[in-house]
């Protein structure tokens, strides 16, 4: 297999064309997360926003959305035509979102307890006050799904229903999974001892977003190498593709640090010791018992998820006390199910419909 000289020259020309297009792009034209929203509350760098409802009579019980700490919530609102947020608003949800912001050096001691019993609880109270609803619905993506589920076990009186998406709960459930490329972070973390994690976090402090991005890139070495090289040629004569590519790049480049205190507990208790699934996870001195999650739970996972392997997500069924538990799976990867048009067209009605049915 060998390309002809003219094919190679064409490729070279396309690469040049694509590079010129990227260079000529005005970055202010590549805006993401443009759905209108208002800041409702703020605590340091962490903010609560409310999206402006687009239907006259939204579903009475508001929904609080939370994403993981290692990325921004903006992935749920990448572009107007690929926005989970817009679709959910169109479906009639009254939607709030927690923006974890970018932790600074002074925030390095913010732990998981501060995130869950601090920020989430404060913001849930704000939403309850503002909406007049006694309970709220929670929608969590990845780590945000775990946070929300733990929160529901601690404050069942404030939670009406929980939807988790691409969130792992039993971090060891993928042991023996033979699918290559899936759960690499789980495998690497399981080779660590708790003392290794203590030492690493003590030595390096908060985990920078750049380093985390490198780990994600390392999981697919060849694709990562070709992404900014040969693949760029495909963007040369397709303005939509180029625009979508740059929007995703904008989101990817906006990766916050994971605070040292939360990272330490996150890696040790979840990845290494799997304490949540074993019923041994503590926030402060309080033992977390997921069987206390008795509200309705919808658990959504992506079939090709390499970050949160399906087996780790589906384990939630046997960990919680809810009698109203549903599962939905969608084709796609960890992020693909939020930014792909086809996935969104099925995902948003499923989420909205499920909340609507349980928000009387």
């Amino acid at each position, binding site marked *: 297999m060998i390309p002809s000289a003219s094919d190679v020259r064409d490729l070279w020309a396309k690469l040049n064309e694509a590079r010129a297009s990227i260079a000529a792009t005005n970055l202010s034209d590549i805006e993401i997360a443009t759905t209108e929203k208002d800041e409702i509350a703020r605590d340091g760098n962490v903010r609560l926003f409310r999206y402006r409802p687009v239907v006259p009579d939204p579903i009475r019980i508001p929904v609080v959305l939370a994403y993981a700490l290692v990325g921004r919530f903006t992935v749920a609102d990448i572009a107007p035509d690929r926005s989970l947020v817009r679709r959910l608003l169109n479906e009639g949800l009254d939607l709030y979102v927690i923006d974890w912001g970018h932790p600074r050096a002074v925030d390095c001691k913010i732990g998981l307890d501060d995130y869950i019993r601090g920020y989430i609880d404060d913001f849930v109270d*704000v939403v309850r006050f503002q909406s007049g609803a006694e309970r709220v619905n929670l929608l969590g993506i990845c780590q945000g799904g775990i946070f929300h589920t733990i929160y529901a076990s601690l404050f069942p009186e404030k939670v009406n229903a929980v939807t988790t998406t691409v969130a792992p709960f039993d971090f060891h459930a993928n042991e023996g999974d033979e699918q290559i490329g899936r759960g690499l972070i789980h495998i690497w973390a399981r080779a660590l001892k708790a003392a290794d994690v203590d*030492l690493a976090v003590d030595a390096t*402090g908060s985990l920078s977003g750049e380093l985390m991005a490198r780990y994600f890139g390392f999981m697919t070495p060849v694709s990562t190498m070709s992404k900014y090289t040969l693949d760029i040629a495909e963007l040369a004569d397709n303005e939509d593709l180029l625009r979508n590519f740059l929007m995703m790049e904008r989101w990817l480049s906006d990766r916050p640090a994971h605070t040292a205190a939360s990272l330490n507990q996150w890696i040790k208790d979840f990845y290494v010791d799997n304490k949540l699934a074993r019923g041994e996870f503590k926030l402060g001195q309080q033992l977390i018992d997921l069987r206390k999650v008795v509200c309705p739970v919808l658990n959504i996972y992506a079939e090709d998820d390499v970050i949160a392997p399906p087996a780790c997500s589906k384990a939630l069924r046997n960990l919680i006390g809810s009698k109203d538990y549903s599962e939905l799976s969608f084709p796609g990867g960890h992020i693909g199910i939020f930014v792909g048009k086809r996935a969104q067209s099925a995902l948003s009605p499923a989420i909205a419909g499920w909340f609507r049915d349980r928000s009387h």
Partner: protein
Amino acid sequence: MVEENPPPSPLALSSWAGSFIQAMALAVDTHSSLMKSVAGFPQGPGDSANSTQTQNIPVDMRAASQASARAAVSTFSSFAEFLQQASAASLSAQQAAAREWGDRLAESFRAVVGTDPAVFLAASERDWSPNKVVLQSLSLADNRGVSIMADLARFLMTAQEASTKAASVMAVMNGAWLKAARTYADQAAPSAAAETKPAALQHAWAAVAEPILQDALRSDSFANAHASFLTASSRHAKARSALARRFADFIEVPSREEMNETYEAIQDLRREVRALKRLHKDLGNRGAETTPRGSNRLRARR
């Protein structure tokens, strides 16, 4: 010392790839020209002097191209061998450089202190050692000087350890890259004569290489090498931090440890404030600044 280089920008990467592609184009161009000039000579019975004319070239070129493709696959296999040798050579060169670097530093250390870093480090952890006496007698340092030299010794030793562990991680991945290259060469051989688009070539390479590399990434040997490297580089970071702390003391700026203590205190205060505000709310007292929770920490905007 393990250095972390900033990641190359997408544009820089595409520029390098562009240069690579351009070089390929040039090579193919040169090859085509060569074929054309070869085709200018009589190829056998029936060939005429005008065989260099454009209409006759494609026939010659097809055969030449097929031969060239077969040669390319053969070259690819050779390249895989070369890669193996180069990577092994690079690895041993790196290890040798690390050893030489370590040896030179250790030699300098010995020249000043009169003993090996490891021996010195072990001795310095005792209350009394001849090394301390040596330092005192040389008027090089007081007890603080001994500690500084111990920190330096620890820094050197952890740097060497981290380099060694990094080489172990590289060894696992080098093996995987080599396997990918060989497998690709083997699989490409049957279709060597077929022409293909560059994108198809790239996809074929990715389809072969990605699973092989990911298989290596999920192996116990990689996970263990990675864990060892992480621990070694953390130890080195701690040793570097200890040296920095000495310097920070010297110029009277707070060290990282001191700042961490401050951050911890700030976070404790934040928690206390949060708890007090909740208590305040529970008692039904509204603060002067009206917010949904009666809190002036949690500033409500609407």
